[in-house]
């Protein structure tokens, strides 16, 4: 976390090891924030769609629907992100929208599959008792199923967020900005230090996010 804030410090450290670094149009801290913003927006959409989807397909009598949902979301991850972006650009144009779409499709899988796994893992007698006490389906979901499946779901959210910090670097190719910018600039200028800076910051961002979400889960327990 601390390493992230003085983003330019990392730059000077890299300067000592590598070649000279041309100053970028946008400062590194701003790119980092941009990157984080992309990932968070995508993650919010993933949660808003993924969690209800997991809930809907785990209701009794919907085994077929559940397999379908898993297959379709799984498809989103097997298609290379680059291909998704390339296909999305003609429709959505350049910039943030196609990148967000890619991040959404890519991040959806762990959230949906963990959401389903978490909900299915809730002990059957516990659910039977909840019904027997007179809880409605909605009360049972809110009071019993969601709290009990939260740890598994959160593990999926962590995986999803960490994936997407990496995936979001590709967005720079579409002019979305973010930490992909120094990587692409570095590639085009054959400046390894720039590439390293981008990669390093993205990795640090991923680790910090993972750590933060981990802390949140532990606080919950």
């Amino acid at each position, binding site marked *: 976390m601390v390493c992230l804030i003085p983003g330019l410090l990392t730059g000077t450290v890299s300067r000592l090891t590598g070649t000279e670094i041309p100053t970028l149009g946008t400062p590194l801290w701003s790119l980092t924030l941009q990157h984080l913003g992309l990932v968070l927006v995508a993650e919010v959409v993933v949660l808003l769609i993924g969690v209800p989807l997991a809930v809907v397909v785990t209701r009794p009598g919907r085994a077929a629907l559940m397999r379908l949902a898993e297959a379709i979301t799984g498809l989103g991850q097997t298609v290379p992100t680059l291909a998704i972006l390339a296909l999305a650009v003609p429709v959505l144009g350049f910039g943030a929208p196609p990148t967000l779409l890619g991040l959404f499709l890519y991040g959806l899988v762990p959230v949906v599959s963990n959401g389903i796994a978490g909900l299915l893992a809730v002990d059957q007698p516990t659910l039977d008792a909840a019904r*027997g006490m*007179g809880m409605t389906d909605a009360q049972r979901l809110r009071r019993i199923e969601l*709290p009990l499946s939260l740890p598994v779901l959160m593990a999926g959210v962590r995986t999803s967020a960490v994936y997407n910090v990496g995936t979001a670097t590709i967005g720079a190719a579409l002019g979305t900005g973010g930490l992909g910018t120094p990587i692409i600039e570095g590639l085009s200028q054959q400046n390894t230090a720039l590439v390293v800076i981008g990669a390093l910051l993205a990795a640090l961002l991923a680790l910090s996010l993972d750590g933060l979400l981990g802390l949140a889960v532990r606080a919950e327990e």
Partner: protein
Amino acid sequence: MIELRHLEKRYDDPVTGQPFYAVRDLSLSFPDGEITALLGPSGCGKTTTLRMINRLIEPTGGQILIGEHDAQSLRPEELRRQVGYVIQQIGLFPHLSVAQNVATVPELLGWPKSKVQARVRELLALVGLEPDLFAGKRPSELSGGQQQRVGVARALAADPPVLLMDEPFGALDPLARDKLQEAFRDIQQNLKKTIVMVTHDIDEALKLGDKVALMGAGALEQFGTPDDLVRRPVSEFVRQFLGEDALLRQLAGVPAGRLARPGDAHGLPQISQDLNARSALSVMLRERVDTLAVTDESGQVSGVLSWSDLERA
């Protein structure tokens, strides 16, 4: 009073379309303020019957009356909040504290917080769990016996007139089971709930049931007091199910002290009043006598127990 009228649960085989009756034409009244044990071999439909009473399973025919009301006239959730429910697997909510577990139904019913809190403490004390010690604990910190005490407290929380219990003591080790059965019998003596208790354990049915309803293959075989079933079985099925040692099983549920009467205990072998009558019989056989002296807690002789007293058990 709970009354079942021609209750039926039919399942149709999805492939052949053949009907299968889990419960068939079952008519039965569970008397107010008594424990009725629903006894029978596995697959006889006893659990299905129980779960139809609070509509966890919907009947395919017949009628269930709870008090004046047809069970079908209420929303299932409303019905269940008025009927306590205890299951073998206990099913406590693992992410909630003991107090929160017990508070489940009162909260669903929208009781004010202070009333819920007071009720939770009262119930924990009732089932023998010190409220200050246990209220804040998680279910995973309790032993199986303690967990089921919480399960019983949770079922009684909103003071329902009716309590449904599905093998409530079945998952406990024998020692914990005995203790909880005793505690439960004491609690019921004060509360006088109308209790339907499913069990496949003959000893448990004879020991706890004021009445026993023996089921076989979806239908009622015999309904009566434990004595009726043991001494006056109506069919070969009943006799065979209870076994030739049924009388001994019944004696095992009766403390010797309850059968003892005043008499001259001079020179007789002594037993404690807490010893069960079957063990007392065993002592008679071993000592080759037909009368024993029964002693109270302090070891003083309080009465005698003879062979003929056992027949009254």
